């Protein structure tokens, strides 16, 4: 079995890379896929916290690379989903502790056992970024509707091309339809026009994300959350299904009534 290695990256920090990684991973695992998440943010790890697995860490990525343990010993099984595993980052080391070639070898080893290996990339364009993309064959870019985030995403796409990672796909995170409508926020079209890459999904700004992230439960498991629904759609698009983009408009009573009566959306 040779699984796919995906890297989730953005350039800018704080746009939701880790949350996205956790939710895509959990979503794929819920579909029955065998998934391994790698936290490549050595020294500033977060993925374990978002997944609520922090207290189970014994060995980490650096231990594996340095040969202190076998990969299997470092992998942590998720507490809710059977098929989801995490390879955590070291908190007390620095990015330079791992070299891109080592990451590539690690990804290739893991893809033998997993259908998906998803790498959570740190912010920035230095060593951590180079490590994270070294073993990947697909890239997912996360951005928010802010000029600075889009600018950094653009830079990242250029760097990915230089590393021969072509056709990355885009997730626009934390969009607020009302603000877009009023012209106070960049819209989806504005972002696509600049970045000119394929859209993988749009995640609306949603308070349930903050709650779920703090509780260590990926929002993708929450059926009522709109962000969770958006991540579900993204996961199915990664699987190759043709899922239409959901309407970002808040559904009022009237629209829901209309839909119920007319039988379409």
């Amino acid at each position, binding site marked *: 079995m040779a699984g796919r290695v995906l890297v989730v990256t953005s350039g800018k920090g704080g746009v939701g890379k880790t949350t996205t990684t956790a939710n895509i991973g959990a979503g794929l695992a819920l579909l029955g896929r065998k998934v391994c998440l790698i936290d490549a943010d050595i020294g500033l790890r977060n993925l374990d916290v978002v997944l609520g697995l922090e207290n189970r860490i014994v060995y980490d990525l650096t231990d594996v690379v340095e040969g202190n343990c076998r990969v299997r010993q470092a992998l942590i099984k998720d507490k809710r989903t059977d098929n989801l595993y995490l390879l955590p980052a070291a908190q007390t080391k620095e990015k330079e502790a791992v070299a891109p070639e080592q990451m590539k070898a690690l990804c290739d080893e893991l893809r033998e056992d997993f259908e998906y290996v998803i790498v959570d990339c740190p912010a920035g364009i230095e060593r951590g970024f180079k490590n994270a993309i070294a073993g990947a064959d697909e890239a997912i870019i996360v951005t928010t509707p802010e000029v600075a985030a889009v*600018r950094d995403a*653009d*830079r990242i*796409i*250029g760097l990915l*091309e230089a590393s021969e990672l072509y056709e990355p796909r885009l997730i626009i995170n934390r969009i607020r339809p009302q603000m877009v409508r009023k012209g106070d926020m960049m819209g989806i079209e504005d972002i696509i026009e*600049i970045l*000119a890459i394929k859209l993988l999904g749009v995640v609306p700004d949603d308070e349930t994300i903050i709650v779920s992230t703090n509780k260590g439960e990926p929002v993708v498991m929450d059926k009522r959350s709109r962000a969770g629904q958006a991540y579900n759609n993204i996961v199915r698009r990664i699987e190759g299904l043709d899922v239409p983009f959901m309407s970002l408009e808040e559904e009022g009573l009237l629209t829901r009534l209309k839909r119920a009566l007319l039988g379409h959306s």
Partner: protein
Amino acid sequence: MARDYVAFKGTKQGLVLWLDPQAEFSDIVNQLREKLSRTKDFWQGVTVTLKESQRKCRPEEKRQLEEVMGEFGMALREEPEEVVSIGKVQEDQSLMVDRDNALIVRRTLRSGQRVHYPGSVVILGDVNPGAEVVAGGDIIVLGALRGVAHAGAMGEEDAVVVAFRLQPTQLRIAHFISRAPDDADLPEPQGPEIAQVRNNLITIQSYST
């Protein structure tokens, strides 16, 4: 000065510094300084490769060259094994502005990417915010120009910038600089536009043939 003791040439390896094999070294240094000071803004941050196939330099001489170039923010390097650059330049072409010779870039320039060419530059794609095009001649963008463009970078005031959508962060022609207005509500340009220097001002008008 009657003869050129010093020449910059564009090659596949980027810019190359050629030195006259017969000339006195002091003349070379003087001419180099004079040449650079004529167009000093152009050279900031440029790295040049020293070509030693015709004239071998002593370490002491190399240091002197480096010193002069350092004054203009340039770096000198020995002939490298391999250079990665997006702006590939044609073999043995004099750096004298040659606007009929254009570099064609068949891609979109993204933030952080930079094209630097002594002749004219044609971009088949967009120039995104954060990207930069510097040309000795004209700049033509068959797409949206949203980054920084500097045409006539070595002093050609009649150089022009043309784009399907001209929305640059900053526009420079020779030593003239203009920037996008701070008022963001300006209407978007409809169709191609041309920027050129008129009465010591960069002016923009719609481009029609």
